[in-house]
């Protein structure tokens, strides 16, 4: 084990802090209590937890579900900014690579918002300020008049060139698909670009973690394609970098769902995926399966963070878990608002 890191990464410091934050995540009992509360009660409950800075800051302006949503987004951003602030060296680099997924999210949000002629304020609400983009850039993006100007505004970022390349396709088809795919692909490509797991300390675990994430993403999309049918070339939606399957095999697996399931049962994630696959058989909807898949990824991340305690894994596992918590609380608050029953809401929660 790497007791003393050779690069300047401060694993023990960051991981100690992350573990403390981890301990503050809500547990099943607290979720259960939340499902019986009204939106404002949820906000009040959060105001007495580690969400208090956000609730206190926003409580005089918003209320109910709105307040909860705003506080959740801000809280997420605060935690992830903190991660970057604490970490140094390779660790910093790896975390910032991973957090770029929020940049990708923000780019897609801007594209979709501008494309659907949504108000800047609504787009702004959906930004998650946890990536590298600063407020000025996000401000520019949400004010853009056309998809082309969004792409222009992003020229200086890693998404610039791939988006510019995809712009022709967009103009031809009028659909956002090429642009969205370009963003997602860029994110996954840049995640691992320039990393040499063999030589650089600390990156081996990162790669392992990401392979799992990519694999799970591919599994999820494979099932969506299998469900939707149609004549889609699955390789078009395949993300490189995983260890589970090749683009070429995906095509035949998507045609035959049973084969896909069998294949997954035997895979390295078989143990983790067991419950998810069972849920798949019992329900028509994929949402439940995706929840189980998310839970499986959480579990796998947790597993990695225990196997490699002094690595980037605990941080990444925390990022996943924190995101999950925010989604869960949001689901509860929204679910209560639209009048879902306690049981229905619990279906929407993902817990380890």
């Amino acid at each position, binding site marked *: 084990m790497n007791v003393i890191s050779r690069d300047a990464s401060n694993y023990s410091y960051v991981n100690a802090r992350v573990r403390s934050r981890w301990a503050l995540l809500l547990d099943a009992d607290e979720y259960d*209590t939340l499902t019986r*509360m009204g*939106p404002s*009660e949820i*906000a*009040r409950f959060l105001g007495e937890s580690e969400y208090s800075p956000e609730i206190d800051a926003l*409580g*005089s302006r918003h*209320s109910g579900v709105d307040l909860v949503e705003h506080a959740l987004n801000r809280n997420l951003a605060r935690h992830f900014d903190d991660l970057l602030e604490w970490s140094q060296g390779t660790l910093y680099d790896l975390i910032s690579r991973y957090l770029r997924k929020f940049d990708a999210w923000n780019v897609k949000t801007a594209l979709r918002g501008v494309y659907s002629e949504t108000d800047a304020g609504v787009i702004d609400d959906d930004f998650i300020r946890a990536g590298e983009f600063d407020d000025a850039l996000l401000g520019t993006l949400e004010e853009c008049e056309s998809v082309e100007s969004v792409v222009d505004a992003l020229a200086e970022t890693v998404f610039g060139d791939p988006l510019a390349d995809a712009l022709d396709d967009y103009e031809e088809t009028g659909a956002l698909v090429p642009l969205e795919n370009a963003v997602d692909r860029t994110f996954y490509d840049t995640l691992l670009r320039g990393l040499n797991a063999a030589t650089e300390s600390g990156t081996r675990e990162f790669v392992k973690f990401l392979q799992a994430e990519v694999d799970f993403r591919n599994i999820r999309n494979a099932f969506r394609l299998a469900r939707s049918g149609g004549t889609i070339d699955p390789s078009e939606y395949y993300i490189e970098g995983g260890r589970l399957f090749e683009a070429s095999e995906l095509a035949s697996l998507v045609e035959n769902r049973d084969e896909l399931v069998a294949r997954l049962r035997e895979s390295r994630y078989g143990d983790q995926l067991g419950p998810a696959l069972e849920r798949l058989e019992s329900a028509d909807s994929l949402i439940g399966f995706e929840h189980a898949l998310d839970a499986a990824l959480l579990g796998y991340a947790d597993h990695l963070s225990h196997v490699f305690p002094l690595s980037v894994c605990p941080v990444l596992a925390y990022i996943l878990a924190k995101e999950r918590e925010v989604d869960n609380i949001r689901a509860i608050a929204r679910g209560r608002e639209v009048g879902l029953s306690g049981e229905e809401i619990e279906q929407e929660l993902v817990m380890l």
Partner: protein
Amino acid sequence: MLRPERMSKVSVTGTKNVVEDVIDVTHDQRVLHLSDYDGSIEGFDAGSPLEGADAASEKLVTVRSLINILDVTEEDAGPARIVTDEALEGEFESVRQRVNELDDERAAVENDLEAIDERIAAAEPFVSLGIDLDLLWGYDTLDVVVGEGDTDAVGHALADAGSIRSYELYTEGDVFAAVAYPESNAPEDALSEALVGLDVERYEVPEEEGSPADYLERLEHRKQQLKSDLESVESDLRSLRLEHAGFLLAAEEKLSIEVQKAEAPLSFATTEHAFFAEGWIPTRDYESYASALKDALGERIEVEELERAAYEPPEHEVGHGEQEAVADGGRTDRPPVVQDNPKVAEPFEMLVRVINRPNYFDLDPTLILFLTFPVFYGFMIGDVGYGILYTAVGWLMYTRLDSDALAALGGVAVISGLATVVFGILYGEVFGFHLISEYVWAGHPPLHKGLMPAEGEWARLWLVVSVLAALLHLTLGYAIDTYKRLRHGAWEALTEGASWAILMVGLWVWIFSRAMESAKPELLFTSLSGQPLGFTGFSPMVGWAALAVGLVGYALLIYAEGAIGAVEGALNSLTHVLSYTRLAAVMLAKGGMAFVVNLLFFGAYQTHGEFHFMLNHGWSHVQSTHPEATLMFGGLVHGPIAAVVGGVVIFVLGHALVLALGVTSAGLQAVRLEYVEFFGKFYEGGGEKYEPFGHQRTYTTQD
């Protein structure tokens, strides 16, 4: 005292139409620690909040937010008052709007200030360069780069650049402005190209007129304006705070109580028409609570004392049989813990809680900590001067600080400080000087630290004493463990509890025996040989017998714990005991440090294996009176005036350092012995804090 306060489990059952009354009474009584319903009773669901919880929560969140934004503190509260519902509609809404406006304003001004600061920082290089700003931008054919870096390298790069026809370089320190006239066929950014690869930080040229100094002044002026704007917004906020603080705090309290009451059913079990609440209550409060409920509601509710929690954990919790588990509905909620110690020992509860709150079935080690920790600490520092300072600082913390933890720490410091004073008197030391030794004990204090060569025996004695203290302390730990296990039968207590102690004691009696004497360090037999003990080691017979007994203990241990026990048993019985030698080591180190500080200031000489500070006279005088003495250090105080001044600084800082290190080393090492070596033998912890349902009113009055 060694046990927490006895708790009773109480249930309250009634129909839904009295639930609010039950909550009101329970809230006022503030004794019931509610247990969450775990869903184990058929037909009973976990309850939902009462009507109005959401509305009150919404207001509460807003009020708290306002308190936070206005930075209201307890001191701002006026007299206690009644908050009416009307006030929560009218006054409240207007405060909210005003606060939001001012908060927006403040954010805007702060934003502007930040921007100005950035521009000021950006303008500074230009000021040092001194070239008028309008000369640096707005050219069609010329390229301008302003930056900071190795100006020579920039010069060379410009001279070498093929695409630049002519250039001019202005420098001031590391800051430079390069103006270039590129060839007509050169690419657009010829100048930038030329500078690629150089370690140069480029500055953006502000598109302003006039001298940079004027520009900077304009910015500074604007900054001042913004600052005064900020000041006025903040003063508005302050006056808003003064005006409404009392109302907001009272509203917060009123709404908190309202919400707390309305959400109480979250931990109840409910059906369509009935509810069932359970909780823990200190047994001595049960009668008054039950009669309060009966007075208010008579026969309409049922209050019952379900059990008085025994201090032994229920059988199912340790995995022996399941009868009780079924009997109380499979619940595993343990009674919350109210520690019950004499007032003087209470600060030490905090030290115990640092590890963990004792659980209800644990023995509360607070009292033992109270008896041993100060002794360890006092022994290690053993200095009247330091002791008085610790006591004084501790007293200040204990009486002045709001934080419970820090106040408790102060209490610990007071008691440890007093112990330090006691040991200091016995050692005869004040701030490392043997003044007490001379004036109280006439030069012969009962104890010595063993720092000086002549007292070497004492140092070895302390080492052995540390080991003996370890054996006592650890045996006590094992004894508590054995006692706890006794309820599972004598055999388990013997094999899993006592066996450890038998092994340890047996081993150490053998070590202190003259069996195989030649292989053992001499100090075992010499250090305690003086009167009154006259101990020169146990006889080999006793030694071998003890070892045999110890090995029996070891065998029992291995039988009970397996391979891990084998390794741990052997290791712990040796290292845990030796670990206590840190008592002697830290004592010597502290003494040594204080000595060094004094040595530097006063200087000292050595004679007959004793060190003497030169408090009154310099070395030359000593030489004349003690010709056999050797000089250790001349002492800054006896040197020139500059040395004296430096000496005073060293003296004060040095003792401050020793004082502080006393806390971090002696304190920590003592606490470590308690936590790691002592607690490790028996302590479980994990108790739940007793938090009775209710609220202490401070800003509102009822009715």
